[in-house]
């Protein structure tokens, strides 16, 4: 019996195609041996990526602050309500950068969680990464506007470009989605899960993400009230109809996947304690899925999972001290709780969380300004047992207005850093750890060939 497109996408328990036949038909499997130990837990073969998108553009200038070169920071930010005093910095070494940094710790801006994870070697920073089409220096940037990503400084475009790793032209799929399609190994449960709605990151042609609410019991996540059997059967039958219109098929596919997947969410697993914040609850929800890795997929192991969570409110044009301070405090505490949970589940080496954001923010502000405007290259966090932590990768920018790393020029330059590293290189490093072959890497990151360094080295790939 040929599976309908719905069954194929959703991967129901009644799958007629064997995993091997699917692999042959797609002709693009990069991982083998996933079926060898069906129906037995096999954590050694499991890996998960957790994307945490900081919407609005996190001012990373205020998160990873120079300690040795603190004067550079103070020169631009002295007197601002959100300036972090040197005395309020938790100092960290960064062997790859030949300078020390500090993470803020005061009433707002409590990042002690991040600090502890860093010092323990489980957290690293990727410095000055942004939507870079090709490697370039400042003269090249100024002379070649055609080499810039589309609509630099626009929220919607930069969010889409970061999530799709396509920096010019149309981007209808995300790199998470394309990655899922490369590593799909016949799992009978959606490989991608989002607890933060529908986004470009997980959009793909064949691998559709499962979207669930950010909190609440997992076995209520796909609650469907009509209980009458005839009605349920009719709903499913209706979803199989095709009257030739394009939009109706798309809606039917989404709902059909939901109805066919809900039967697999039978339990609400108990996990550890998380802060009762937006991100804390999202990471708790994700932890539940991770804890079910040997139960989902029709009783066999999930080989790969990709998760998407989000935290919004980073567009701090005003009130940055209160707003960014509170958000980074939330981020730090949620990451700490998440890592503790991974350890509790004995899976810390198999899960890597990482942040992305639209962009960083203008470095220079005036003394009375309470916020910052849009900029570019930013610093990101990677967290997990497989991360080669306690270091900062990429190249930290020279914090000089109108300096060699500032895309602004002249006396009004505000410090919008030209990235040293593309978010494609950042993502490719994660994807390599995740198991993508070099050949497939070009499909997931179309412009990765522009860069000599396709692995930034912050993951243990052993």
């Amino acid at each position, binding site marked *: 019996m040929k599976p309908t497109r719905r069954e194929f996408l959703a991967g129901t328990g009644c799958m007629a195609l064997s995993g091997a036949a699917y692999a042959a038909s797609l002709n693009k499997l990069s991982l083998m041996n996933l079926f060898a130990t069906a129906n037995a837990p096999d954590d050694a073969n499991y890996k998960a990526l957790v994307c945490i998108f900081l919407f609005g553009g996190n001012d990373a200038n205020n998160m990873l602050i120079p300690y040795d070169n603190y004067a550079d920071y103070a020169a631009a930010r002295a007197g601002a309500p959100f300036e972090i005093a040197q005395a309020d910095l938790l100092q960290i070494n960064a062997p790859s950068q030949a300078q020390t940094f500090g993470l803020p710790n005061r009433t707002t801006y409590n990042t002690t969680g991040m600090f502890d994870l860093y010092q323990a070697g489980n957290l690293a920073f990727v410095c000055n990464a942004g939507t870079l089409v090709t490697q370039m220096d400042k003269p090249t940037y100024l002379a070649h506007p055609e080499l810039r990503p589309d609509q630099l400084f626009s929220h919607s475009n930069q969010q889409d470009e970061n999530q799709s790793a396509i920096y010019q032209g149309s981007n209808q799929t995300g790199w998470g989605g394309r990655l899922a399609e490369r590593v799909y190994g016949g799992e009978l449960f959606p490989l991608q899960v989002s607890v933060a709605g529908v986004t470009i990151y997980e959009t793909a042609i064949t691998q559709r993400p499962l979207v669930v609410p950010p909190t609440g019991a997992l076995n209520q996540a796909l609650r469907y009230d009509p209980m009458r059997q005839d009605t349920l059967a009719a709903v499913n039958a209706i979803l199989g109809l095709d009257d030739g219109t394009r939009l109706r098929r798309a*809606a039917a596919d989404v709902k059909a996947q939901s109805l066919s997947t809900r039967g697999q969410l039978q339990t609400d697993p108990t996990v550890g304690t998380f802060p009762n914040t937006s991100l804390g609850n999202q990471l708790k929800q994700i932890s539940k899925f991770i804890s079910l890795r040997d139960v989902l997929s029709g009783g066999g192991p999930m080989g790969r999972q990709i998760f998407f969570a989000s935290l919004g409110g980073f567009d701090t044009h*005003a009130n940055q001290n209160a707003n960014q301070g509170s958000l980074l405090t939330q981020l730090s505490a949620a990451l700490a709780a998440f890592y503790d949970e991974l350890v509790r589940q004995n899976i810390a080496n198999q899960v890597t969380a990482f942040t992305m954001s639209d962009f960083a923010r203008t470095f220079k502000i005036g003394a009375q300004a309470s916020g910052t405007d849009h900029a570019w290259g930013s610093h990101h966090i990677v967290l997990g047992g497989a991360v080669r932590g306690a270091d900062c990768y990429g190249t930290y920018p020279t914090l000089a207005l109108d300096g060699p790393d500032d895309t602004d020029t002249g006396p009004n330059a505000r410090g919008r850093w030209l990235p040293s590293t593309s978010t494609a290189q950042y993502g490719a490093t994660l994807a390599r750890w995740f198991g993508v072959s070099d050949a497939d890497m070009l499909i997931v990151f179309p412009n990765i060939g522009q860069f000599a360094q396709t692995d930034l080295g912050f993951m243990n790939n052993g």
Partner: protein
Amino acid sequence: MNNVGTSYSVAQRHLQWLGWLGLVLGISCTPGSVLQTGRSQKAIANSHNDLVRFLEQATYGPTQADIAHLEQDLGGDFGAWIDEQLAIGVSDYPTVCCDGSRGDTTCAEPVTACGPEDFYAFPTTPPSDCPANTPCRRDNYTMWRLQQIFYRNALTAPDQLRQRLFFTLNQILVTSAQDAAINYADYMTQYLRMLDENALGNYRDILYALSKNPTMGRYLDNITNTRTQPNENYAREIMQLFSIGLLVLNPDGTSDGTPSYGQDTVVDLTRTLSGWVNAPILGRNNQTNQNLANYRDDLVANAGRHDTGTKVLFAGSPFEATIPAGQTVEQDLNSAIDILFNHSNVGPFIGRALIQMFVTSNPSPQYVANVSAAFNDNGQGVRGDLGAVIRAVLLDPEARNESPAPEFGKLREPVLAVTNLLRTLGYTVPDASIDADPVSDLALTNPGGTPTAYMAQSEDVFRAPTVFNFFSPSFPLPGSVDLQGPEYNIFSTSTSLSRDNLFYQILRGTVAAQALYRPNFVRSDLSGLLPLADDAGVLVEALNQQLLHGQMTDDLRSIVVNAISGVSGAERVVEATFLVSTSPAYQIQR
């Protein structure tokens, strides 16, 4: 006329339904004719179903009264219906007053007694006589009461076309109470009034009023934008989202990919828009020692905060425009608005957005060009006439084509999916005496409680996540590389089921009440269908006529008829209505 509280005898309803079927089956209306060109389109309904379809596009849902009026009083003349709608008065939002009768408040102006619906100006910290879990707190410190008014207008207001355009403009020119700084009823209300009163007016007036609106001034930070501390937020978004968009557009909405502005223009427009501040306070609350900020009156100019230098917008492009040095705050604003409003992008940019929100997610370039032309000139030499634009949107041949292309149509967003259902079938509330406003119960913000039905579907009115609205106009249709499906941005495995669950509850009347935030939940009135319950075929055909304007396929019909064969009476009516209304055939409006 609305359906609330009206009671028909069962026999009257029965006859009404049979009469309806009679219309469908044989009685013809004047044959339709749709002209290809010109602002003087005259479109007459081809049939009863054509007429219902038009009202689905143009209103929050076709009530039986709407249909009868258009069909019988206006002879199915869509143009005449639009003319009528343009002349109907505004169903407005209340205003804000300073209530000097409050013992703890002094007012900075002569006290005007607050009307029964008006919002008091309250301090940001609630005073002790407005404690948590009271109507005072709910009405003034959340969006609940404003949402209630929104839904009342959606379900009952006679100026339906204006109310639809109001909602569309609210989703393009976004402010949101997600920003805690404006999550107060008295801070949001003037922005809503301004959009509501101007929705069928002129777009330049809207851009101008928006730039002086205190809610927007706070939301996109222009009130902090000064000569010495520039804040680029409003300048950037007024271009990207409110007027010209990101790319240089042809009149038909296509583009060769040339950006319409760069960072230099953002910087200079920021300078141009500097110097606006809140109007003087409305009063002071003595108990909390807080001023009552003025979010009612327009922003005022502050010359000392204004950058008076020369500004150049779109330098080096065909759109280059210079704003001379030495102008006042007000003069600079008018210069900026004139430049943006007269940019050739605005017609296609706003025109296409309106087409997407009313008719179809993927209009042809010709359709966009037609609407664009109406924006550029309403037929009397006036640019930006939104009445002319919406007429062009609704009367275009592509909109009026009853056998549209496969890619035509749009997924009903959560709000419209529900209002269409309620207005089409009719609705009641369990106990109208609990709440004087019989449609209070779709106002569902409940900060302290479980996520509400609209939050569960990601369309919490007046509380969009960001200035980019609930969904993006360019969001790709799932599984497609060539089509857009904006509403799919919030249609997921989770929200698609939430939608069905809400429909099920509305049809069965089973939503749990909550004393403060959901005292009296609305439910569909299916009594008109009950007399047809004994004959499944007749029942399903009635649903076809009402919900699908006669478009039901044989496949869908047979599935529904078979599914309801095992139940009878009221339960049969509920199940049948549920199956039809949650089907993709209904959820996607074509």
